[in-house]
């Protein structure tokens, strides 16, 4: 499985772990610890650049390999250097290592690493207990289901093993009604972890689903389509009803990823547009979580209706938040729009009435995101509150995120092609996108 110390898998998995260990020595110095974990994430990124040419296995993992350390770095960069964040920072490194391992490993090791991700996130949710009773049990229950299904896939014969694996991945890439784990991770964890997990969990899930979907029986695929459409409607309606921003973002994620599930189940192909879409949705969710975290750092965990008029007092924050909201609403020139448009114009996408539900979910996003942005930035300016615009690190992390989303929106799709076609799934790349 692992042949030498220069094995890319080993290097990528071990770097963040090794980085986390000396971090314990800096436990009493939060500022230095933060700098250290940032350096480790950068080292992971550099290492990925170095070894990406030598990687074998599912090639669709390659775009995500870059995505994960970038997401980890950006989620850490804007965090205040306070003692409360230390556990989350080190957990970010550990999850980064596990996530990279899941993406590039195969067979038994992949399952062990996946099991570790599920177990660790579940433990963290249980440890922090930020969720209300039913939500907490649903979240832990979903991760437990993921673990059970993963174990079952080891002993069961196909197609049961494939279905079990699919269930595990549907916990990570949220699919109605197994989305509780994803929602729980975003709502129930502290610090930068929700922003990082908003990228990590769907990336692992998507990567796994790609290898499974082409092998699925017609009936299963039909079920997936129905669940995806239900999820798109359910996520949109739930997002409309939320006053807590993090819950709104979590359910919006459920709706957006339901669109991806629908696309994957309908076309049963890999396409760079789907990768763009997934990366953009994950990053924009993470970005909005980070932006909200900046508000929380100033005003506490407040209700959406409690603050207004920030455009007046926090112009830099307002500019970046409105750009992120623009991206989240699926407007050009950001990746969510390009990915969505590219998916819908995939030649192999059959026409059906489901398209109506998809565009309704898309429309609903404009409503709830605009409502949130408007509530926060505009309206009456609260003079009774002390206002402070973004710090340099917060500003830098959000700005880089916006720029990445823009690059995802306008860069040629071939940047997101896999290096080599992998087994198990077909590709939509051969067909012309704009013209057939």
């Amino acid at each position, binding site marked *: 499985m692992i042949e030498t110390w220069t094995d890319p898998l080993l290097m990528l998995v071990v770097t963040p772990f090794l980085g986390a260990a000396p971090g314990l020595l800096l436990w009493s110095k939060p500022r230095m610890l933060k700098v250290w974990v940032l350096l480790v994430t950068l080292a992971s990124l550099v290492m990925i650049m170095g070894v990406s040419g030598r990687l074998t296995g599912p090639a669709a993992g390659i775009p995500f390999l870059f995505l994960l350390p970038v997401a980890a770095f950006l989620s850490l960069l804007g965090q205040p250097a306070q003692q409360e964040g230390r556990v989350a920072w080190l957990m970010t490194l550990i999850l980064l290592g596990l996530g990279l391992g899941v993406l590039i490993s195969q067979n038994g090791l992949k399952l062990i690493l996946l099991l570790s991700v599920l177990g660790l996130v579940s433990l963290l949710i249980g440890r922090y207990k930020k969720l209300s009773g039913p939500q907490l049990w649903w979240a832990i229950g979903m991760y437990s289901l993921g673990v059970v299904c993963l174990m079952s896939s080891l002993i069961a014969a196909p197609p049961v093993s494939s279905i079990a694996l699919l269930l595990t991945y549907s916990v990570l890439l949220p699919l109605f009604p197994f989305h509780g784990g994803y929602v729980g991770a975003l709502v129930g964890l502290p610090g930068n972890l929700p922003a990082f997990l908003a990228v990590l969990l769907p990336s692992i899930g998507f990567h796994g689903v790609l290898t499974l979907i082409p092998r699925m029986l017609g009936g299963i695929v039909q079920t997936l389509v129905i669940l995806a459409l239900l999820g798109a409607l359910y996520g949109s309606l739930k997002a409309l009803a939320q006053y807590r921003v993090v819950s709104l973002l979590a359910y919006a994620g459920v709706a957006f990823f339901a669109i991806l599930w629908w696309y994957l189940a309908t076309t049963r192909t890999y396409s760079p547009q789907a990768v763009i879409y997934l990366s953009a949705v994950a990053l924009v969710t993470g970005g909005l979580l980070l932006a909200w975290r900046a508000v929380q750092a100033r005003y506490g965990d407040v209700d959406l209706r409690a603050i207004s008029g920030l455009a007046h007092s926090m112009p830099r924050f307002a500019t970046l938040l409105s750009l992120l909201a623009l991206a989240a609403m699926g407007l050009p020139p950001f990746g969510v729009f390009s990915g969505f448009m590219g998916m819908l114009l995939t030649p192999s996408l059959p026409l059906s009435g489901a398209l109506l539900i998809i565009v309704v979910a898309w429309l609903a996003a404009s*409503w709830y995101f605009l409502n949130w942005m408007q509530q926060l930035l505009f309206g009456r*300016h609260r003079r009774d509150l002390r206002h402070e615009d973004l710090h340099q690190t917060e500003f830098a992390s959000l700005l880089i995120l916006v720029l990445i989303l823009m690059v995802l929106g306008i860069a040629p799709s071939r940047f997101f092609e896999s290096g080599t076609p992998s087994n198990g799934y077909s590709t939509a790349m051969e067909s012309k996108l704009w013209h057939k």
Partner: protein
Amino acid sequence: MWSYVILVPLLPLLAAIVIGVAGCSLRERSAKAGVLPIITAFLGAVVTLVLVSSKGPISVRFYEPGSVANLALPMGFYIDRLSAVMMVLITVVSTIIYIYSIGYMYQDRGHSRFLALLAFTTFVLLCMVSSANLVMLFVFWQLLSWLLYLLAHNHTHPATLDGAFKTFTLLRVGDVAFLAGIVLAHALYGTIEFQELFARAAATPVILSLGPGSGLEISGVTAVTLLIFIGAMSKSAQFPIHIWLPKSLYAPTPVHALLHAGIINAGGFLLNRLAPLYGLSPTTLHVVFVIGALTAFLGACMMLTQNDIKKTLGYSTIGQMGYMIMECGLGAFALAVFHLIAHGLFKATVFLNCGHVIHAARQEPKFPYKDQAADRGEFSLLTWLTGFIATLVLPLIILLAAHGVLRIPLRDSQGAVIFLFFSWVTSSQAILTLTRLRAVAFWKVAVAMLLTLLLVILTYLLAAESFTYFLYPAPDEVASYFQAAALPAWLFDFLVVATTLLIILGWFLIYARAHVPTIRIPGWVEALRVRLYVLFMNRLYVDLVYLRLGQGLIRVAHRLDKHDVGWLP
């Protein structure tokens, strides 16, 4: 060869960047620095129009339609006569509005932001009208929706904010329908390139089933054009997606001028850009006609009952846009473009001047100074008779001019009759309006009527002949649009007769209201008038219906959120 024409849209972008980046530090100097690129863009648009008129369309693509190694969004420019005309209109209106705004917004805190947004909107509009394909057009179409939200400007004012939110939400409804139209077009015909799309749609008729076993079918091109038409309806404020336009009345005056003179024309432009596709679907053209006619009628009625100058102008624009869309529905695509240009220039002038009117009204304590009794006293039989007879004689003059001078065969061509009919309706409307302006000396009104008559007829005939030929040089193409849009003979005759009767009724009512003691109007007519007045004053309660729909949806969402805790997260 002429690829430098892409500088025309890029210059306003440059202005936007300069003002946006350096605006805070340079203040009025950056605002003035923006004037030069915008004026240059206008001059460039004029040169482009001349070039395109003489040398044919210009195409600049930054992507290869048959390749996947492209930008994620296929960017390219296709500038034909239609695009060039629109570019000239946009740049001339933008230049005037920009210069006006430098002074108008001078003391505003967001002065630079506002000017940068104006310049950026010009860039977006120019890119939209010169898009090489459907996706690029859609990209800029959506950005326009967002810009309308931002241009509301005073986001601390609750009513402005509410209006901006409703504007964006309703425009997104249109955007989503447009998106569905593009997806359907691509799925059916496999391309997003305009010319290719038209050719394939004409060559390959596709029938879609509306449900397995339902037996309901729709032509592919009808489905595509209907969906895209919903997009056009939203941007051009067509009934029932019109309510956003009056809601935006709190935006600064230059925004109104830009909105009513430029942005709102997007729907008319879109239908013209896709005219060959619309020409393939008589069903869609009839729907377009009905929606346009309904909007024109309701917009005009609502305009008459508003008591706020900006709302009045807003509903006037809705009525005019209805008129423009109706023209498209009748196959008179070029006339619609002519209409939108004329309306755009007129409305920009009115909006930029309406502040002065409001100011003057505040200075004049006796204004409004006339009561009903005074109105009755000023009735002039001479003016009324001049107007009435001129209106009745008008069709005869038009018929003679068309038949004798222009040699248009009226009996065989419903399209030609439509042109003439429009010129009659428009001039009758102008004369009716002039008659109601009784503050002017009567002989002046009579002369003005006759001059208006002459002007309107000449303009319409000019529009019918020259502008149509300019935009659509192939006579067969124009004829095919009219043919596709042709209404059943009985319906067409009914509409002509009904409109004629309405015009005569208008004259009669003016006469009757001036002679109340001798001509008794039945009580139920007055009661009906009051009811209709209240109905139109409340804008047919369409706003209320939308409000209830929105509240209903939110209630459902909250109910779902409340009840599912415990069994679903």
